[in-house]
């Protein structure tokens, strides 16, 4: 997710604002300390125009 965010030139705060979560939550997801709920995972995937499977690696969740 970090790669897609940085590729889009977005800061964690900007992505957090778009997804209506905190910057801390974005950071926790990117560092693997927090696994998002299914609705948030879908929202993230839709934001990047991708699928949940492409954004998140279930084997390393």
């Amino acid at each position, binding site marked *: 997710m970090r790669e897609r965010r940085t590729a889009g030139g977005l800061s964690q705060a900007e992505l957090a604002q778009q*997804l*209506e*979560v*905190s*910057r*801390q*939550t974005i950071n*926790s997801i990117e560092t693997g300390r*927090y696994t*998002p*709920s299914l*609705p*948030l995972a879908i*929202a993230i995937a839709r934001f990047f125009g991708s699928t949940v499977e492409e954004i998140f690696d279930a084997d390393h969740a």
Partner: protein
Amino acid sequence: MQTMRKPARVYWVTPAVSAAIGFVYLIGFTIGGHPLDGLAGLGVMLLFGAGLAIAGRRSETVRGLLDRRDERITGIDLRATAFTAVVLIVAILAGFVVSVARGQSDKPYALLGAIGGLAYVGAVIWFRVRT
């Protein structure tokens, strides 16, 4: 868990409840003949509520606890509440044992334990039916 936008008024629920508790303190102390203590209690709760509202402007975590928009912070709140409940259960059990070991009444520990137990069973049934 939800990540949808919630009305901004949710942010003010906890400060408002703090203020309401303060007024309940005031009424209780006034009925008991100690209105000044009631005013002190009200002041403490108003300050607490105002402090939360102000802190929410600066802290992402406090803001998340107040507006309930962030699922991760809401989850943290849930786990912290469960941990607090465990601490209270241990304190009630310890108080109960110490009290009866001293030959004193089991009150209020037995009553608090019963309320906690019934609340837990009721909550399990409620969430079992609803989810």
